């Protein structure tokens, strides 16, 4: 029997965005507070899974036409190349650099190359989680 999912679908249209925003917050708070790339990536894939549950897999594929396996590769590449910045600067592998910059809206902000490494972790986590869930969900 096909049940009517209208409440779930309508709620998802708002809640999924709030979850993704929270995952971005977790991602950026990783340096000073609890959070980081891993839990942020898991939270983002949780939002995508929520959309998958409320709608179906084809809808998610249509909304975000991403091959999640490429996302894993992009993430690993980002992390490795962040580590290689140190090598090119004459320091050991995975040396990180940081500095304070005056950005237009944000004001005085500290930027750290560890955030780029975390971004790679974020991509890998999203890619791996979505690949696992999609390949299990698609098999009959």
């Amino acid at each position, binding site marked *: 029997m096909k049940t009517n999912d209208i409440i779930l679908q309508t709620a998802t249209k*708002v809640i999924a*965005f709030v979850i993704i925003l*929270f995952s*971005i*917050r977790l991602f950026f708070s990783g340096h000073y507070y609890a959070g980081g790339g891993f839990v942020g990536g898991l939270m983002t894939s949780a939002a995508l899974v929520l959309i998958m549950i409320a709608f179906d897999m084809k809808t998610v594929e249509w909304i975000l036409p991403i091959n999640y396996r490429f996302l894993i590769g992009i993430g690993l590449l980002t992390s490795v190349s962040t580590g290689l910045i140190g090598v090119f600067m004459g320091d050991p592998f995975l040396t990180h650099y940081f500095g304070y910059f005056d950005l237009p809206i944000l*004001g005085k902000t500290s930027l750290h190359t560890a955030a780029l490494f975390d971004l790679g972790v974020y991509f890998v986590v999203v890619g791996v989680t979505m690949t696992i869930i999609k390949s299990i969900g698609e098999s009959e």
Partner: protein
Amino acid sequence: MAFQILLNFVLALVWMFLSHSYNPTSFIVGFLLGMLILLSFRRFFNTRFYMIRVWAVIKLILIFIKELILSNIAVLKVILKPKLDIKPGIFALETELKQPWEITTLANLITLTPGTFVIEVSEDNKTLYVHAMDLNDDIQSEIDGIKNTFEKAIMEVSR
């Protein structure tokens, strides 16, 4: 459209609460992040991404300002000419626009075009009667061209 703007504002407020900073900076950051999320999930909604329409409105305003300046210069030229060799006339303009605000905007834009203004809209809202300051065959086609750009710009907003 309205739902997307509202959702964007809610996301900006949620970002303020999450980051414990209740100032305009974090609101703007939250608004931009929310816009980014809405952009990547734009196919989730059955209407267009709302910034496309906002951009169309901005383009319409820029056209409005440009025509205002050009029309004043054109009228100035006619006034300062010693010889009065203009040929006034009235012509009908068929329009495809349906909504009352669309027709109003088009009429206002035509009024600001160099040397033309709308004197009457027909009963069924399909024809605009336009008075032209200097009417000949060449200018007729030129004015129709300008009108097509206006009508297209308005349709871009309401589509």
